[in-house]
């Protein structure tokens, strides 16, 4: 009833139902509707204009654009698979590292922290998200990378020489590497995963938690028995949205991944990602090369959209309204 009243259209205007007032009313409605539809227009424009500009490269390489493994502008070869591989592997590694930490922080803020520490906890996660990515990149390439290098070298010299492990941890070791990129990405996606999981944990009914404790559960048993089962969908959504964020992250990765288009399982070797190669080489590119880089943007756009839509879908099903910002 109340909602109906609020939704009554222009007819509700009892005092000044003159034609001008009516016009003002309906033109306002038109303006806000147009503003809302602008989102749709922008997304369509992104797809149309970028595909058009990338067309020469798609035409040049055909399906080989996404399956080819050689990217060599000087030889007119545009196979984007090494970049797709680099994007996926660095993002997945970051996800594996970030997920436990994020869940830990979310649990800390919601369940473990003394009451006084809760607000500062939320605040610090926001602060982590507020640091611009290029600053993390700067720190990664000038400070963290050089600091980790000797330890990474040690790992490569020991574990990296064992039979099976050498495929992953083997040398030669680079200052800039897939590993460093994954580490920096981890720091950058922890805030988003934390804030979504925390929101999800917030929806667990207090009754259920109280019931678990009343049955004699320890705090951890309460978390495992009441909090986690209730939050499974939401955690999947957090993972997907975090993955989408990691895949699109550009500048920090561009600074630390090493800009080498190769497909290797060795995480200490330099690699490259789609976003990073666009950022690093677009400036000096021209012709088909430039079209190919825009084409990479189209592929990256498509991949992140799929991951994000899946995340949105799961988030909606888990009954949450917002899905991260």
């Amino acid at each position: 009833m109340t909602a109906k009243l609020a939704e009554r259209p222009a007819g509700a205007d009892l005092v000044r139902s003159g034609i001008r007032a009516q016009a003002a009313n309906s033109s306002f409605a038109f303006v806000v509707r147009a503003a809302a539809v602008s989102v749709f227009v922008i997304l369509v424009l992104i797809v149309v204009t970028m595909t058009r500009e990338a067309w020469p490269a798609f035409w040049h390489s055909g399906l080989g654009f996404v399956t080819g493994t050689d990217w060599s502008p000087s030889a007119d070869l545009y196979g984007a698979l090494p970049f797709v591989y680099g994007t996926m592997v660095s993002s997945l590694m970051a996800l594996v590292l970030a997920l436990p930490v994020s869940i830990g922080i979310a649990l800390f803020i919601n369940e473990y922290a003394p009451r006084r520490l809760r607000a500062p906890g939320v605040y610090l996660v926001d602060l982590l998200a507020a640091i611009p990515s290029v600053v993390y990149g700067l720190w990664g390439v000038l400070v963290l990378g050089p600091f980790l290098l000797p330890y990474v070298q040690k790992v490569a010299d020991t574990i990296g020489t064992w039979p099976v492990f050498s495929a992953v941890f083997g040398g030669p070791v680079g200052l800039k590497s897939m590993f460093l990129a994954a580490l920096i990405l981890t720091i950058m996606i922890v805030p988003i995963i934390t804030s979504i999981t925390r929101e999800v944990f917030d929806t667990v009914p207090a009754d259920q938690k109280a019931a678990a404790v009343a049955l004699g559960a320890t705090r951890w048993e309460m978390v495992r028995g009441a909090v986690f089962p209730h939050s499974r969908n939401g955690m999947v959504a957090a993972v997907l949205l975090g993955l989408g964020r990691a895949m699109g992250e550009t500048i920090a990765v561009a600074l630390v991944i090493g800009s080498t288009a190769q497909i290797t399982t060795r995480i200490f070797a330099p690699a490259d990602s789609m976003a990073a190669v666009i950022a690093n080489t677009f400036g000096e590119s021209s012709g088909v090369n430039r079209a190919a880089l825009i084409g990479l943007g189209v592929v990256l756009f498509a991949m992140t959209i799929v991951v994000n839509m899946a995340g949105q879908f799961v988030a909606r099903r888990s009954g949450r309204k917002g899905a991260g910002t």
Partner: protein
Amino acid sequence: MSVETPTRPAAAPLPTYDATDLVGARLSAPRRYKNRVATACVWASVILALAPLALVIVLVVKNGLDAMGVEFFTGNIPSTRSAATGMGPAIVGTLIVTAAATVMAVPLGVLAAIYLSEYGRDGKVAATVRFLAGVMTGVPSIVMGLFVYTIWVLNFGQSAFAGALALACLMLPVVIRSGEEMLRLVPDDLRNASLALGTRKSRMIRTVVVPSALPGLTSGSLLAVARAAGETAPLLFTIGAIQTFNPNLFAGTNTVLPIQIYNGALSPFEGAHTRAWGAALALIAIVLVFTFAARLVTARLSTDRHR
């Protein structure tokens, strides 16, 4: 994080005193250790996340202050080999580009949020727009840069305005989502009371709904601005490069702090590194000012509520 702790095999099961479990006095060893390990892991993850934050901030402040001086704010940006510290053009550029992006994205976003919360509500159009705004939030920032390059720069060339367009595209969905959330917090009673007095709906929205939601709308927009101010990728190909001041929004190439940090990090020269740290400090300061402002507005909002 499933923490399966290696515990020693439980000896003879303890006699169970149900009630005492509540105070933890007689928990069986595996349960007690699992609980302790879980607690330790939770604390460890907080420390793991805090360490990089603290390290980054301390280093940025320490190294950044070395570059700060009068010259940092007023001088032109020197060549990459130079040890001079000028960063003025980038500071001005950041402010211009961010302001222009805000002027474009915030009004449009708030209007769209008004549509979602006051007109579309649970309709199909609104649901679609909401979904697309979510999708748009996930568009990588570099893709927004390429988009503006293809649609604007190819036709009109690089300028601060092109960069602002890209940032506005990134801000728009954030403003829409937070805006709708804030507008929805306005009680329906206020709307009904206003309508019952015979107000037109558009006027009701302008004089009742938006003013009540204003602190929330402001704080959401400020956070979007803070996020946009730190973006690098969308600006790489849209604003170009320049080492001198260019206060003109529409003409000529420009530069911003994030791009200077990026260039400094790529450069092998000490002077460029120092300038990059200085630029990082200035950028973080700008971002944090907006973030704190948003917090202040939110804090005022909540005290107003409890009054």
